[in-house]
């Protein structure tokens, strides 16, 4: 469905230099599947989302392939991309207020999302919008159709954004920190809704988040990013039960939830490398508790027993990942 293959993104910064925000990522999202893309600030997870959506900062360089249902999105013109966005792929971002026009009725905004991509009449679009608002759990959707966004709570606004995103049955939804601005009981409602909709519609979701707990709650698979690269991916069960990459392990260990008693939390010392000049070998090596001479060379990407993959010299006895035919 969505196949990201060796994607690299370079973004121009001042002084004629480039930041390699995404440094060769291979990842897929299947039908009805929720894949969690996790990492800390600046790891490139949102830039990767932008690469898929065709929404990179101007002047950025993108290489590799982004295949949606077998079609390479990389060569699309701006106009072609506009037709793909909101139709084949849709975006739900962190702040629902920024996604909604404050001066228009929420129902009309959902109806417009439909009419932008389909040749149907106003009445039919309105009926479909009401149906969508009902599907995302807006109580009394017929009456709320005409309300402007400010009459809705943050959680309810995010439901409206999800309704608009799903209006044209996209193959893939990119959800970038969709619940980060919400209270925890409301977050649980929205995550449950996302899960429920993917099962019913078959839409695949790339869920970009900093929160490993959110991944455990709703994702099928997880990909962990560090300094622009995916260091480990696999099923949520495999990766959480037995993280193979030292960064994944350190990230899980530093969560307070993993330590029900007091006492110091394990920390990751040092700083993220400067991505205007990324290190040649493993990018985590300078902070890794298990660093070794070999880490100055790029680590092999190997296949784990559960069918996941990990990029680390500690596991070079595992079989290398076969190059995918592209």
């Amino acid at each position, binding site marked *: 469905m969505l196949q990201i293959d060796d994607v690299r993104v370079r973004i121009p910064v001042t002084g004629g230099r480039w930041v390699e925000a995404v440094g060769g990522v291979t990842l897929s999202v299947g039908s009805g599947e929720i894949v969690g893309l996790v990492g800390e600030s600046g790891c490139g997870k949102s830039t990767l989302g932008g690469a898929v959506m065709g929404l990179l900062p101007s002047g950025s360089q993108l290489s590799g392939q982004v295949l949606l249902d077998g079609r390479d999105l990389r060569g699309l013109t701006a106009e072609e991309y506009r037709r793909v966005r909101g139709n084949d792929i849709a975006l739900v971002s962190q702040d629902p207020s920024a996604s909604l026009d404050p001066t228009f009725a929420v129902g009309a905004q959902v109806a417009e999302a439909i009419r932008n991509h389909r040749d149907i009449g106003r009445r039919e679009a309105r009926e479909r919008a009401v149906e969508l608002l009902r599907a995302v759990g807006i109580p009394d959707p017929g009456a709320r159709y005409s309300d402007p966004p400010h009459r809705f*709570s943050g959680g309810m606004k995010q439901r409206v954004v999800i309704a608009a995103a799903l209006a044209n049955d996209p193959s893939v939804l990119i959800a970038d920190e969709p619940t980060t601005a919400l*209270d*925890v009981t*409301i977050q649980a409602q929205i*995550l*449950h809704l996302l899960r429920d909709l993917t099962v019913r519609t078959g839409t695949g979701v790339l869920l970009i988040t900093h929160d490993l707990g959110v991944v455990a709650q709703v994702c099928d698979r997880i990909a962990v990013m560090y300094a622009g690269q995916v260091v480990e991916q696999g099923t*949520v069960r495999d990766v959480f039960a037995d993280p193979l990459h030292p960064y994944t392990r350190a990230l899980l260990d530093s969560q307070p*939830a*993993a330590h029900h008693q007091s006492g110091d*939390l394990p920390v990751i010392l040092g700083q993220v490398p400067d991505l205007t000049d990324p290190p040649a070998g493993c990018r985590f090596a300078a902070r890794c508790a298990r660093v070794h001479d070999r880490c100055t060379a790029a680590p092999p990407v190997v296949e784990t027993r559960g069918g996941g993959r990990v990029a680390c010299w500690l596991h070079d006895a595992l079989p290398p990942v076969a190059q995918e035919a592209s």
Partner: protein
Amino acid sequence: MTALLDVRGLVVTFPAPGSGLRRKRVHALSGVDLSLRRGHTHGLVGESGSGKSTLARCVLGLQRPDDGSVVFDGTEIVGLRGSALRDIRRRIQPVFQDPLGSLDPRWTVGRSVRESLDAFGVGSPLDRERRVRELLDLVGLSPDHADRHPVQLSGGQRQRVGIAAALASGPDLIVADEPVSALDVSVQAQILNLMARLQRDLGVAFLFVSHDLSVVEHVSNEVSVMYLGKIVETADRADLFAGPVHPYTRALLDAVPVPEPDARLVHVPLSGDIPSPIDPPSGCRFHPRCPRRVDSCSRELPALTPVEALNSTGHTPHRVACPVVLPARP
């Protein structure tokens, strides 16, 4: 032992923004009691509109309550002015979520930290320079950091500066409002470790306000759970997390995403929205969303009631504001 901080019957309302002549009011706190022991950490958790930050502002003397009292080390601080207020402020210091908002961007880190020493007249000018280096060292920064500006620091380093500035006046209590919420998890762990070490070494108490239950569980000795201006449950950390009693506490704990492979979200722990604090529900504030509600919940405002049977650790009585879940009295 008397408490370092004793809050009783605190009530705070504000004019609702944009309500104009209708004069609607936000009911931020509707009768809150809380006590904190010397050298302990009291965690305060709640969602939007719970009033946890307003409570923190009252303790800092930044918000005057409509009613109630805040007693710090035997002194009533509500209504204090002038030098008496300044003396108390020296002993109760804030740490905020965003250190960029509380540090002057034009000042070097050293100057920001020294400002607290100057303001409270701590030591001679020469002592103060030395004290700045000591404080930076205490929070894990090098002397070089004194000459840098806030924008040249990472988020974690900025929060270390915020903590150093709070420590400058030698406080007995630090009121920390979401101190690690803006930080990545690996940096968050460093700041939480630092705060725990400072507490061990200096004996400073923390009122720790957070929406993150995992963080609160990690740092607190006692925990209070707030909902729409009321504390619904308060207990020793272990008692609260092992045996939550109030239906809201239970739902909140159920909703917390835990990074474990068996933590799947199988049902929605709590349906409905958080009501507006402008026109909060009658009776128990939680009754419209509560799975255990009975008819009387919409009429009677439940008081925090000690539950002896639930108290296993013996420090703070486990108290719950819900007659429905409490065992019947003999």
